[in-house]
Structure formats: structure tokens, C-alpha cells
């Protein structure tokens, strides 16, 4: 059965990740980040609001567990990219989220965390925002869902789930901290 076939009988909305799968995906990404970085030293996790922020906190907790306790907790912050978006002029004035970066990013390995990677434009904006805060030694990208359809040369380093989608489908990530429950669903726009 093809996920993208035109005669696909799938219902208008379906769950592609449940709470357990999200939890396992986060644990695996946490391990991957630690492996790639050879430990937790120098790491700073920056979530992109809204749902990247709780994801970043989950990854930090999972890393602390995986390492069996760290000398210092991994710094976690939020990086709002609204002012750096390339589509500001296409919408009514957008609300701006919080930027809270707990430590300097100069020389750090910054892991940007977001829920869905799609066009890549949010990540482009995040890289610009980060550049105004300092000069990290390296920047990595961790996303819970990569749904394809990139419009910019952007690639994630750590992916919870690769999800082939059609562009008329909508991927919704719900997280307990924001939405009351953990779930990733795909909805087809009934156009």
C-alpha cells in the first residue's frame, strides 16, 4: 500500500507516531547526539518555539539518563525565529515568541531542535538568528519528523521519523507539555 497513492483509502486523519514511539524516537536521538558529539561536553540545545522547546528539554533529560548523570546539566534554551522569517510580509504581523539562551553560544556545539522539518525555511531563519547571538563551533539539527519537500539546501543530522508526505497533507505534532497529549498525525486537506 502506498502512502501517497492517489487512490489511497486512508482516512482523512491518521496517527503516524503514538506516545511510546515518540518517546523511543527521542531516546534514540539523544543517544545519536551524544555519540556524534562524543559525550555531552560543549552541547547547548536550543528549541525553536513552540514545540521545539519542550522537545529540547526532553532530549536533554534523555541525554542525562543515557550518560547516567552529568556533572552539569546540558543547557537548554529557546530560539525564536519570527523576526528572521522570509515570509513576514506575506502575513499579518506575527506574534513573536521567547528567546532565552542560558549560556553563550560562542564555541559551543548548538543543537537546534524542532518538531517538523519541511521547507527548511525555519531552519534558515534559525541559523541567521543564531549568528546574531554568537559564533558556535558547530550547529546540528534534530527534528522529530522530517516530512520532505525541502525548498532550501537544509538537512537534519538527527531525525526521529522520516515521513514521506504529499504536499497537500498536514503533519500535526502534539506534545503533552503544549497540547496535553503526545501524538503525530497526518491530515489530508479535503480540497
Amino acid at each position: 500500500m502506498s502512502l501517497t497513492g492517489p487512490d489511497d483509502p486512508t482516512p482523512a486523519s491518521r496517527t503516524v507516531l503514538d506516545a511510546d514511539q515518540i518517546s523511543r524516537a527521542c531516546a534514540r536521538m539523544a543517544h545519536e547526539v551524544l555519540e556524534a558529539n562524543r559525550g555531552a561536553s560543549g552541547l547547548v540545545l536550543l528549541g525553536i518555539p513552540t514545540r521545539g522547546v519542550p522537545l529540547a528539554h526532553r532530549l536533554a533529560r534523555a541525554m542525562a539518563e543515557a550518560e547516567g548523570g552529568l556533572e552539569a546539566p546540558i543547557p537548554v534554551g529557546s530560539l525564536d525565529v519570527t523576526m528572521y522569517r522570509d515570509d513576514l510580509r506575506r502575513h499579518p504581523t506575527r506574534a513573536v515568541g521567547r528567546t532565552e539562551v542560558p549560556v553563550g553560544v560562542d564555541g559551543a556545539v548548538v543543537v537546534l531542535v524542532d518538531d517538523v522539518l519541511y521547507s527548511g525555511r525555519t531552519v534558515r531563519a534559525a541559523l541567521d538568528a543564531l549568528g546574531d547571538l554568537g559564533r558556535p563551533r558547530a550547529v546540528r539539527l534534530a527534528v522529530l519528523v522530517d516530512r520532505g519537500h525541502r525548498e532550501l539546501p537544509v538537512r537534519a543530522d538527527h531525525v526521529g521519523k522520516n515521513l514521506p508526505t504529499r504536499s497537500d497533507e498536514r503533519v500535526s505534532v502534539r506534545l503533552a507539555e503544549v497540547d496535553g497529549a503526545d501524538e503525530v498525525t497526518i491530515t489530508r486537506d479535503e480540497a
Partner: protein
Amino acid sequence: MRHLLSAADLDAAEVGEILDLAEEMALVQSRPVKKLPALRGRTVVNLFFEDSTRTRSSFELAGKWLSADVINISAKGSSVSKGESLRDTVLTVASMGVDAMVVRHMASGAPLQTARWFAELGLGVHVVNAGDGTHEHPTQALLDAFTLRRHFRAQDPDRPDALAGRRIAVVGDITHSRVARSNVELLTTLGAQVVLVAPPTLLPSGVGTWPVEVRHDLDAVLGEVDAVMMLRVQRERMSGGYFPTPREYTVGYGLTRARLGLLRPGAPICHPGPMNRGLEISGDAADSAGSLILDQVAAGVAVRMSVLYQLLGGQDDADGTTGALR
């Protein structure tokens, strides 16, 4: 938001949005790169028919830190000194293709009139009132509210609605003060109770209809309020006869060193500047631990960034882009 002409145009939710965004903007002031790209390609003109240091320079910094192009035009050194009318000046500048005009003028209502001319001609230029005569100075009231909200939140973090229920004294030359009018509007909108303290000669005739308490006994009021806002005695707007001598004004209504002891512990002191030290406020008060006067200046940039972003950060209004002259 199309224009910002009066503090009375804002409801509590809108004020909250502006102040919350200003908190984010304030963080930019402490960053290595003081620049956000949000208004790249937008042009802001500061059109100042009256002298100003902090308002003009903070609007200029606010625009520049948001990546807008900013130019300053003052009456001195422009065609205004050759006798050009307000209408001709603002339409000339607007025709160059600017996106926002920040207007300070000695005549009450000049920014509103400017906005009306733009509407008549279908020009989509946003107008910000940076002080008009004795009418309003809405961004000053916003930065005062921002400064006080921060101060009260730091004192009492469990009370996020920091200004509601507070009693705030506004002291001095109410008649000539656009700062007082905007603050009465804004603080009342936010649920605070404003107490105006002034000699009868410096209270406007319609003050009975304002939602405020009017008092003449500063000594008693100081112990009853959560904050005190001193106003500048505006000698340039006075034709004389408002008080016998500066010395008598200070004795009755100045925040002297002796009066500092009458304030509630921790009650902050604000002044919109520029100060007449020794007249409405003593050096001891201005430089005391409770003084928020420099916090107000810092807040001015953040609040004006927030206002410019609210006006210019999104797509152009459908009715604002028609552009063509009728």
C-alpha cells in the same frame, strides 16, 4: 494596528501585546549584535517640529535595530523654517515612499490630522504620535507602564497583572503635560488608579471628567501611593502666572530630599525627562535607589521597537497599498 495616535486607542490586550514584545526587544539591547532583520527594506521618518533628545534618538535606534532605514527631519534646517505648511511638509515626505512617519509637533492633533490627509489621498503611511502639543505622548506612557510593570513584577513575581489595583501619583504641571494625559489613559486601561497632584493653576479645566483622583497635598499623597511620577515644569509653554516663584513651586510640589522619607518603602520614582533638577525634582530624588529614570530611557528603545514592529512587521493592509492619488 494602522497608526498609534493616542493611548486611548489601545485596549488592555493590545497594551499587553506591545509590552510583552518589548520585553523580547529589550533582550536585543544586551546582545553582541544589536540588530533584528524584521523591518529590512522599510523606511521610517522621524519628523520633529519640536526639540527632543530621548524620544527622537530612541525612535531612531528602535528603527535601526529592527533594520529599517531611518531618517530624521527637524524643523530647524528644513523647509519648515522657510514657512512650509504642515500639510505640504508631511505630503512631501510621504511622497518619497516612506512606510512610517513619527511625528512630534507643537500643535495638539497634528499627527491625527496627518493621518487623515494620508487616508484622504490613499497613502499607506503609518503615523506614530511622538508628542503633540499638550495632547498626548502615547509611547511615553507605554514605556512608563513597561518600566513600572517590570519593577512591580520583580518585587512581587506572583502578581503578573502587575499594574492592576496600583495607586500611582502623577505630580506637577498637568495642564501642559501630554505625558500626563497619555498616562491617565493607559494606566486606567491597565486597571491602575491615577492620583493627580498639582496646584489648582496647573490643572486643566476639564479634569473633573477624567477617571482620576485630584489632590493638592503632596505630603499626604506620597505615603498612599505605590509609585510617583514627577512631571517637568514646562516653562516654554507657560505665559506666566501659574505659580508665584519657582521656589514656592518646589516647596509645595517638588520631590525634595525631605519628601523622599514620606514615600512608602520601595516605591519607585519616575520622570519623563528632561528634568529641571532643583525645581520639580531634587538631585537626591533623581539619583536615589528608588529612581527608575534611567530604566525609563532604556525601556523607551524597547517599547518603540515593539510599536514599530506592530505597525510595520506584517503585510501591508489591503486598504493601505492602493497608493494612487485620488
